[in-house]
């Protein structure tokens, strides 16, 4: 009798072993175009977070499914299949959505038919950055208009800096009348750096953004907004007027930086509308080994509005290409300097 | 007697404990840090012999800058500027002094033509434009309706797998030639250089020699060791003519890639002289906490020449600024395409 109990337990164990078959796909299906298409479509249907918010600006996801299923059916090669899937994902009009394969990465060009508003040759000429700028923690900084205007060029939020470094930079702008933070064409990066930079320009505790994430597979199954507040830096706070220069190339974390600074007492946003991108990206996979990136968490601004399509500047201004080529002048920086010096109201 | 044994051992050990006093430094004594930096560079920098006639002798540099440290240096940034000027005498792009507020740098491409306009190459549909493919840091597309393959590689620090390159070269199957554009590529990891070269050689070739210092003297070097690259066993070998486009901002790893490709049977270098920088950088510290990076291990090319000041292209060609602004055309790419299509000899 005792031995029966022993072997009974071994038997129980084996029954549980093989019941994951709903996840097992037979190998030849892995590279089957239609199977992968359905798989990607369903993954996005479950996990993409902007369906509700983009109801009126993008096609209905089911309609997209029927339209692209016909294209997939007459795909001949892997590259063609990739282009069809890429076109489908671009229907979502989201810079955070990419399809990554071993031969290409698809992306939606959110800067399409928008002015580029920045000229790198003019920016590196002696009138602006030139050769004698200082460089620390990814930030290039210098004073313009012989000491009256402080200028910071921060090209990527992936470059991390410490609070002490930014504190030192702001201390060199002590006797300036105002500060320009140039984040044009900054594609974004680490949200931690956004919070670090904001903390040097606020006087009391401030909640720059809220984040909501999906708790179910439906298009509108969201959690309640969670916030993380930013405390002012316990060192020198920059109290003079600040102008943040933006253009359509400002995306993701830079977009969050723009809408967090907008509306602060001494801050003005100057330049072109930002590129948007207010979703924190996540990654999923396809059976044929490709990976797809999509916006998983929604980041709302301080009054809980969505900024996926971009943040409008306080003062709209575009780069004058003629002036830039002939006289090497960047009219956006010049206007900001004039505002600071009080030449223009 | 036995107990004496035990006590002796305890005594012996305590004697050894505190005799590291020759490593104790006064943290922020400006003269001591100056001497310390001068001696570290004197003992470990590797290009003193090679640059005998192109830079000031290192002892004279000491006599020139010591009085500056004594007399006109009353705050930290001025002290930094003096040390940065001293390091600038070495005329080496790999030499940097890192502090919390600035990084000293030597502009190796000073008053040389840029020969490259990123906006034209990236946004003009004639070259890359919208339907370019991106993978592993490469942007690639066929030009001249399929006859010429074009790859733009922006930085040698973006890693790629051999699968990526195989796919790219497969897509260039029926082209008559290939353009690899590494203009303004500031360098990166050396491992990517041999990975890329392995797709363009037929048998194991020596791409250069490695040497490292074996002592503090200016000419204490180990015997050179050949750096061999063998053809990529699993991947595609591109058999048709290859044109590598260079300009004065190709530095460090890109410089090694150019001298590795130069002289290969089917390869021609086209464009401006490269920026050089063939020393492998090494980092050390100063007592005051600043870091200094400098070239410590010279890399020779295949005929044992140092290319610290740049590699001359097979065909020298500079960018026609007028053509760029007016018709958005890059005459260097056009010339390379003409060579490939046989329109030019």
């Amino acid at each position, binding site marked *: 009798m005792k031995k029966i109990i022993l072997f009974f337990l071994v038997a129980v164990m084996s029954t549980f072993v093989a019941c994951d078959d709903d996840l097992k796909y037979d190998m030849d299906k892995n590279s089957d175009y239609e199977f992968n298409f359905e798989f990607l479509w369903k993954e996005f249907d479950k996990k993409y977070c902007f369906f509700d918010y983009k109801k009126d600006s993008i096609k209905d996801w089911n309609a997209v499914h029927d339209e692209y299923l016909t294209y997939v059916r007459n795909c001949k090669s892997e590259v063609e299949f990739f282009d069809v899937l890429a076109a489908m994902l671009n229907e979502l009009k989201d810079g955070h959505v990419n399809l990554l394969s071993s031969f290409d990465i698809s992306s939606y060009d959110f800067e399409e038919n928008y002015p580029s508003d920045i000229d790198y040759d003019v920016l590196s000429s002696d009138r602006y950055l030139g050769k004698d700028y200082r460089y620390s923690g990814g930030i290039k900084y210098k004073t313009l208009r012989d000491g009256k205007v402080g200028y910071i060029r921060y090209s990527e939020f992936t470059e991390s800096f410490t609070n002490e470094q930014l504190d030192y930079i702001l201390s060199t702008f002590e006797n300036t009348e105002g500060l320009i933070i140039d984040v044009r064409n900054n594609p974004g990066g680490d949200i931690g750096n956004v919070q670090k930079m904001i903390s040097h320009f606020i006087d009391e505790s401030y909640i720059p953004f809220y984040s909501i994430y999906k708790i179910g597979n439906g298009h509108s199954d969201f959690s309640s907004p969670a916030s993380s507040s930013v405390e002012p830096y316990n060192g020198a706070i920059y109290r003079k007027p600040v102008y943040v220069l933006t253009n359509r190339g400002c995306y993701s974390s830079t977009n969050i930086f723009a809408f967090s600074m907008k509306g602060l007492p001494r801050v003005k946003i100057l330049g072109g509308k930002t590129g948007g991108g207010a979703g924190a990206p996540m990654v999923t996979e396809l059976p044929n080994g490709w990976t797809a990136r999509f916006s998983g968490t929604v980041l709302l601004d301080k009054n809980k509005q969505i900024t996926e399509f971009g943040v409008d500047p306080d003062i709209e201004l575009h780069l004058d290409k003629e002036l830039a080529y002939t006289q090497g002048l960047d009219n956006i920086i010049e206007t900001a300097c004039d505002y600071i010096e009080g030449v223009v109201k | 007697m*036995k107990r004496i044994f035990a006590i002796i051992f305890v005594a012996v050990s305590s004697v050894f404990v505190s005799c*590291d006093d020759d490593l104790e430094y006064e943290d922020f004594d400006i003269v001591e840090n100056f001497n310390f930096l001068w001696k570290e560079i004197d003992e470990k920098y590797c290009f003193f012999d090679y640059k005998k006639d192109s830079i000031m002798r290192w002892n004279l540099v000491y006599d020139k800058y010591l009085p500056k440290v004594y007399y006109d240096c009353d705050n930290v940034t001025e002290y930094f500027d003096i040390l940065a000027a001293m390091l600038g005498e070495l005329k080496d792009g790999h030499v940097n002094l890192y502090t919390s507020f600035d990084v000293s740098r030597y502009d190796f491409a000073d008053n040389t033509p840029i020969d490259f306009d990123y906006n034209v190459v990236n946004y003009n549909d004639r070259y890359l434009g919208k339907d370019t493919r991106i993978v592993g840091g490469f942007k690639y597309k066929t030009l001249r309706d399929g006859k010429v393959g074009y790859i733009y590689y922006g930085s040698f620090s973006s890693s790629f797998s051999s699968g990526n390159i195989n796919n790219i070269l497969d897509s260039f199957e029926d082209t008559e030639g290939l353009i690899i554009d590494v203009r303004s590529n500031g360098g990166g990891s050396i491992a990517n250089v041999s990975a890329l070269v392995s797709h363009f050689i037929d048998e194991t070739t020596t791409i250069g020699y490695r040497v490292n210092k074996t002592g503090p003297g200016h000419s204490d070097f180990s015997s050179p060791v050949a750096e061999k690259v063998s053809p990529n066993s699993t991947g595609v070998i591109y058999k048709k003519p290859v044109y590598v486009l260079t300009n004065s901002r190709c530095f460090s790893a890109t410089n090694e890639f150019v001298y590795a490709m130069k002289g290969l049977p089917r390869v021609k270098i086209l464009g401006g002289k490269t920026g050089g920088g063939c020393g492998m950088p090494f980092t050390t510290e100063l007592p005051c906490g600043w870091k200094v990076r400098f070239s410590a291990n010279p890399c020779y090319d295949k005929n044992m020449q140092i290319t610290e000041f740049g590699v001359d292209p097979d065909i020298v060609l500079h960018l026609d600024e007028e053509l760029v602004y007016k018709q958005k055309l890059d005459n260097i790419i056009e010339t390379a395409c003409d060579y490939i299509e046989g329109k030019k000899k």
Partner: protein
Amino acid sequence: MYLIFLEMRNFVFIISFIFFFLTTLHAETSDSASVRLGNRAFGLGLGRETHHVSYLSPLLYSGTTFEFWNETIKHQKAGKCDFYSLVNNRVSMSNMMPTNESTEMSSYYDVFEYHYFYDWKHTPKFHMLCGAYAGFELGADLLFSNSNNPVYIRADLSLLGLSFRPTLCVRTKRRLIKISDQFDIRLAGVVFSPTYTQLYYDLTLPEYEKSEFLDFNSLSEKVRISNKLMVELPLRRTTLRLGMLVDRSKSMINMIDNRTTNVQALLGWSYDYYNLKGRLNRDSRFTTVFE
């Protein structure tokens, strides 16, 4: 580059698991011939370490160090004289800074030593153990603020070293206190180290002479002494082992100046054990679990 050095750190931890495994193996294989029990002790160590590696930085780094140590002693009898074999295994992690406190060097290393002593008994209470040891030290010093040379790999195979361990047993009326002072000095061994400004990247080149990185050296090039004073104090139910370790090494190999001073307080437990396993040495006096 950063990823490779994190893998290095995992490698050091996996090695430390294997060393721990070996120490237990040593503890486990007691043969029935010896009348006496084996002794196993393990515990923590906390102290200060000053460290200088001219390959990473010309400055002297100092900071705190934390370690797990593990030691087993076994008695073997051959003819009339007694022999003792001892296995010592230390896994240590330390964070150090220079006096200007601008950067931080973290170092992880394992030490595994096998000692073999002859017991030169003076009086029944005082055992003068003298013998030799062989050991292996593997670890890495990480200074991530350096660009191409952020790691110095510490690998030292000490083939021969002298080891003395005078031990005194003091019997009070209720307990037996054992005081021992183990003094080791390294005589000869092989060290793995790059030369002056050589980068570890050179190791990846096929044509490179791997032996350039290995250096057979003796007392003149590398001095390494360690002195461990330990007191074993039996309390009511457990036996406490308190001690102090002073570990000093100074070497100039391949033009790289490498100095370490390590002063630690040791606290741990020790217990005497008698193992019973296998078929042959079934000591009939004992029954085992489930029997």
